[in-house]
């Protein structure tokens, strides 16, 4: 989502390969499954089922990105689409109810507008340069320079990271601020509740048969937590060499705590990651990123010009990239965890009275 525009080719040391027939067949099958999923989403009535299908949709599109060699994008798509959005949409459904509402007005006017817009867009594409032609202007605007110069200027193997973190450092700073603003927006609408202490927990209404914890899941979650966190650190600091970086690592970190919340409950999780600390971390990541820019200005360079951070410009670039990726990772992780807590807090409250009308027959 956030990184989608920056699809530089990852041809590190291999020349462009010709796709074999089998790869083509895989691509076509994946795209067909994607289309089928979309039609099923339109047709289904149960919103819960639709969210599950969105998960499949995300996995499929991530797989297509892998087939297109855009591994960093695939990583992000899986993290945001299949991971975080699914979880947040499910939490939302608890509040809003699980069935599609019957539309009150006829759909003819929207259909008309959509058809006209779609036709105009298709008509617009006719003027575009031939699809996939390597001579297209999009591939030669700045990409040539990045591909030619980044190994000597920045010197890290993953060109996507050098474009994201250094050449387009301003964009990425903007994206981090967008993530932070999203947190501010969510917290101004939804609260995260205080953790219940043990005594008050006892006073709470008795757990129903559904509320009993799943011991097997708790054990598995405990085994997996350290593994996930180490993996997040690997993705964070390996982003210079392979697919990954701050955004993806932040999401993986958040996933570890989301898993903990899901298996152990919000109280235990809030005790583990207190809300004030999360807020400070979310702002701190942005400050680390912006601060790197300020430091480079103080050292006599431009804002976010990492060349001045060390005696040698290339190692300056390395330091700058590692530091700002760390800032990105911290902000993304703490924002996602806090947003998830806010959604869970809302989902724990009873739904606001409104009874669902016009239930279709309960197949789900």
């Amino acid at each position: 989502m956030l990184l989608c525009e920056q699809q530089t080719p990852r041809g590190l040391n291999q020349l462009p390969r010709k796709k074999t027939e089998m790869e083509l067949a895989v691509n076509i099958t994946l795209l067909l499954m994607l289309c089928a999923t979309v039609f099923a989403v339109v047709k289904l009535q149960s919103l819960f089922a639709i969210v599950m299908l969105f998960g499949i949709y995300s996995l499929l599109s991530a797989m297509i990105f892998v087939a297109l060699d855009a591994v960093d994008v695939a990583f992000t798509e899986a993290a945001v689409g299949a991971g975080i959005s699914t979880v947040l949409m499910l939490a939302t459904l608890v509040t809003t109810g699980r069935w599609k509402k019957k539309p009150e007005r006829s759909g003819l006017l929207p259909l008309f507008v959509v058809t006209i817009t779609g036709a105009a867009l298709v008509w617009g594409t006719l003027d575009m340069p031939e699809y996939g032609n390597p001579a297209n202007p999009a591939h030669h605007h700045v990409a040539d320079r990045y591909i030619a110069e980044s190994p000597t200027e920045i010197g890290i193997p993953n060109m996507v990271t050098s474009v994201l973190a250094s050449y387009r450092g301003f964009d990425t700073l903007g994206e981090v601020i967008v993530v932070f603003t999203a947190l501010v927006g969510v917290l101004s609408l939804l609260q995260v509740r205080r953790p219940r202490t043990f005594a008050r927990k006892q006073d709470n209404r008795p757990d129903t048969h559904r509320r009993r914890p799943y011991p097997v899941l708790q054990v598995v979650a405990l085994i997996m937590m350290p593994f996930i966190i180490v993996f997040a650190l690997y993705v964070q600091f390996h982003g210079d060499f392979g697919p990954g970086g701050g955004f993806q690592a932040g999401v993986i970190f958040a996933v570890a705590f989301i898993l903990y919340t899901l298996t152990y409950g919000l109280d235990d999780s809030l005790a583990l990651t207190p809300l004030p600390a999360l807020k400070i971390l979310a702002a701190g990541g942005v400050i680390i990123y912006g601060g790197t820019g300020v430091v480079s200005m103080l050292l006599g360079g431009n804002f976010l010009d990492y060349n001045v951070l060390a005696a040698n410009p290339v190692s300056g670039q390395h330091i700058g990239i590692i530091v700002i990726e760390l800032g990105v990772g911290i902000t993304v992780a703490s924002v996602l965890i806090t947003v998830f807590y806010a959604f869970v807090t809302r989902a724990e409250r009873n739904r606001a009275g409104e009874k669902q009308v016009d239930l279709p027959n309960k197949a789900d």
Partner: protein
Amino acid sequence: MQIAVDLVSWLFLSMGMFLGLTGAYGILKFPDFYTRVHAASISDTLCTACFVIGLALQSGFNLVTAKLFMILILLWLTGPAASHALVRAANTAGLKPVTEKKD
């Protein structure tokens, strides 16, 4: 030697394919949720193992193999746990298994 390794790896992969297809056929054809879980989860674990071993034999002893086995461990940990949780949730929600053949 290479031929032998290829042969064994091919054997594992086809075993994996067979198990996977069985599981998929099972979740399509079986009459109710519990039987479907049975078909999917049991075949899944061995299917994953066969695929991973088949691929590991092809790549030899390196980082790729290590990552493959990490995937295997992860799927072995999460797959059965997810199936267990799924069945338990369905059971507490009051989903009854189909015990008689419908006419």
